[in-house]
């Protein structure tokens, strides 16, 4: 359970404002960005902060998302903290640059407003923009509400600037459901954030004529495999660091997000559903309804997708009879990405049924009834009665 000690000013703001305010509090020295719906409020608010003198940094209103990430990579490689934000097609356009940010071990932080990718073109919530970026070497986490967006921008810098990690990180927030929806958010106190997040002082990569270094050298096979191994080791270290930062943040600001996952009413649950993003909020209510009817269901909130919380999910699986995994994205020909990852994590560890649920694609609402359908399927599965391993929920002409 989250405990809130109100310390900063509380305001009613959108998720995009929270993402922008997180940038303000983190004091990046360079922001480079390109507008894309529904990320636009982020760049607009940052422009306002800068023009009102509330934020002091280089601002590069660049000509594309590819250039936005390129500018961040170059500036971060020079030795300063950077920030950008994007969504959907913008992230797809950035794809090539994402590998470089990770390969050069540059701890760039980027909120991504999760939006569907064309075709068909749409602007509403889907995770098919960030999920395909899972192999780029970026940490990824998914937010449930606007407070988490702000808190995670600051935590993200703290996690990735740790010398054990030094990788970039996406802080993902659902299009419109968070980006354009107002909620009360505690805007953290700047002095406390400064104490939590000291200035960025890189030892591993910088461009200084007094101490020349090549960053991004052409490398033969004699070296690249070791570089890949180092990136994997950094990602593995991020598990521990994310946990430490969660605790430090909770100590300082009073909100404990649990770490790579969070749980709700899991103590004595017979079955569990794992969700990510805003559906988690809906699912909390559905858990309460099911519990009121005597059904012992619980909820697992998948916060980090990279690194994937393998151990945590294994521990959950040991305690339940069936597990459902909700995805707002699909890897065509296989299934929902977090369902695939969960099955992989549990292979050889447990033989409980692990069902995949696809819902809310293209921004379709995921209602409490939809989530209820998922829980009922998982309950059926715990009794050996499920029909599908992967179910499409709320799809015209398709039986869930």
């Amino acid at each position, binding site marked *: 359970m989250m405990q809130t000690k109100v310390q900063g000013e509380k305001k009613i703001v959108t998720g995009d404002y929270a993402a922008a305010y997180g940038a303000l509090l983190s004091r990046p*020295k*360079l922001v*480079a960005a390109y507008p894309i719906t529904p990320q636009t409020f982020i760049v607009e608010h940052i422009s306002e902060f800068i023009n009102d003198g509330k934020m002091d*940094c*280089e601002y*590069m*209103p*660049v*000509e*594309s998302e*590819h*250039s936005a990430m*390129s*500018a*961040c*990579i*170059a*500036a*971060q*490689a*020079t*030795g*300063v903290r950077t920030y950008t934000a994007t969504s959907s097609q913008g992230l797809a356009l950035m794809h*090539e*640059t994402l590998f*470089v940010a990770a390969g050069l071990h540059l701890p760039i932080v980027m909120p991504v407003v999760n939006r569907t990718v064309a075709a068909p073109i749409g602007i509403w919530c889907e995770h098919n923009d960030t999920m395909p970026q899972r192999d780029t070497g970026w940490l990824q986490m998914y937010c449930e509400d606007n407070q988490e967006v702000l808190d995670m921008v600051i935590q993200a810098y703290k996690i990735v600037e740790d010398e054990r990690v030094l990788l970039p990180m996406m802080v993902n927030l659902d299009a419109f459901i968070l980006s354009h929806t107002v909620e009360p958010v505690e805007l953290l106190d700047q002095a406390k954030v400064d104490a939590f997040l000291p200035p960025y002082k890189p030892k591993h990569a910088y*461009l*200084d*004529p007094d101490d*020349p*270094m*090549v*960053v*991004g*050298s*052409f*490398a*033969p096979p004699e*070296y690249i495999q070791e570089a890949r191994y180092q990136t994997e080791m950094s990602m593995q270290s991020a598990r521990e660091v994310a946990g430490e930062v969660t605790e430090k943040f909770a100590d300082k600001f009073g909100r404990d997000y649990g770490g790579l996952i969070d749980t709700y009413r899991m103590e004595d649950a017979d079955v569990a559903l794992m969700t990510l993003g805003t559906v988690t909020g809906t699912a909390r209510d559905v858990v309460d309804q099911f519990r009121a009817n005597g059904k012992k269901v619980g909820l697992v909130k998948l916060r980090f997708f990279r690194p994937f919380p393998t151990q945590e999910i294994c521990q959950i699986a040991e305690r339940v009879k069936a597990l459902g995994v909700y995805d707002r994205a699909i890897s065509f020909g296989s299934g929902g990405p977090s369902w695939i990852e969960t099955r992989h994590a549990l292979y050889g560890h447990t033989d409980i049924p692990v069902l995949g649920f696809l819902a809310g694609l293209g921004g379709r609402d995921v209602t409490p009834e939809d989530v209820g359908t998922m829980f009922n399927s998982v309950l059926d599965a715990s009794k050996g009665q499920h029909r599908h391993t992967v179910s499409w929920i709320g799809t015209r002409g398709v039986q869930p």
Partner: protein
Amino acid sequence: MTTVKELPVQDWFTSGHTACPGCGGAIVARIAMKVFGQNTVVYHPASCMLIFSGTYPLNAFKVPYLHVLFENSAVCASGIKRALKRLGKDDVNVVAFAGDGGTADIGIQALSGAAERNEDIVYIMYDNEAYMNTGIQRSGSTPFGAWTTTTPVGSVKAGKMEFKKDVPAIVMAHNVPYVATASLAYPTDLIKKLEKAKTKKGFRYIQILAPCPTGWKADTSKTVELAKLAVETGLWTLFEFEDGKYTLSRTPKFSPVEEYVGMQGRFKHLTPDNIATIKEWIKKKWEREKQLALVYK
């Protein structure tokens, strides 16, 4: 005005690199780095220069050096400069060395964006008129008629059918503080332009003809001669566009183009009609240069 003899003996692009014999790009890098010196950060896109300057853990550049990708030289150099400014090192020169493919084609979006924002960088395009690093494929900067591996000499079509893209004019259209063209065969003019670029603030663009004996199918001892003939035939204009004023740096002799193309295997299939087309192109180009001199005076 600094002459070649007055350049520092010290090199910041040193021997030990792996460029082909007669590489114009390597000469450009060596001269440019003598002008820019130690207080410089360089950016390289994917290019011959990225490869021949060094393979990890070696590098021929003695200054900090960044490579990110292919199409983003202008924005990466801009990011470096902005970061240096925030680190209190605004006096550091930030120089991008990019080839013609990385500039005229895949990099032109980032080039245009950085020019429009008047980013405080020097952008040097070493123009060897094709994608030489990947094995001599045509670029937008490849001249009419030239053989490349993607404009092969076949029975129906032979060589590039289109004309060279005028990138300096495109950059001039952004009204940046400094645009110049140069040729390594005129080092005093080249050094003067590099020094101006070093001194000025804002977006500075220099396009330098850098013959590639490998890709041009030319004798490796003829690099400087080719760079000279390109100017004297009128194929390559030497000019400066400084604070809105256009100045020709040299009026060529308009020597016969046959001598220039005759030294290069990439042109050996040219027909008399092709030669006539090139001559007509030179004529029109110089009419345009005269107009530019009148408009931007």
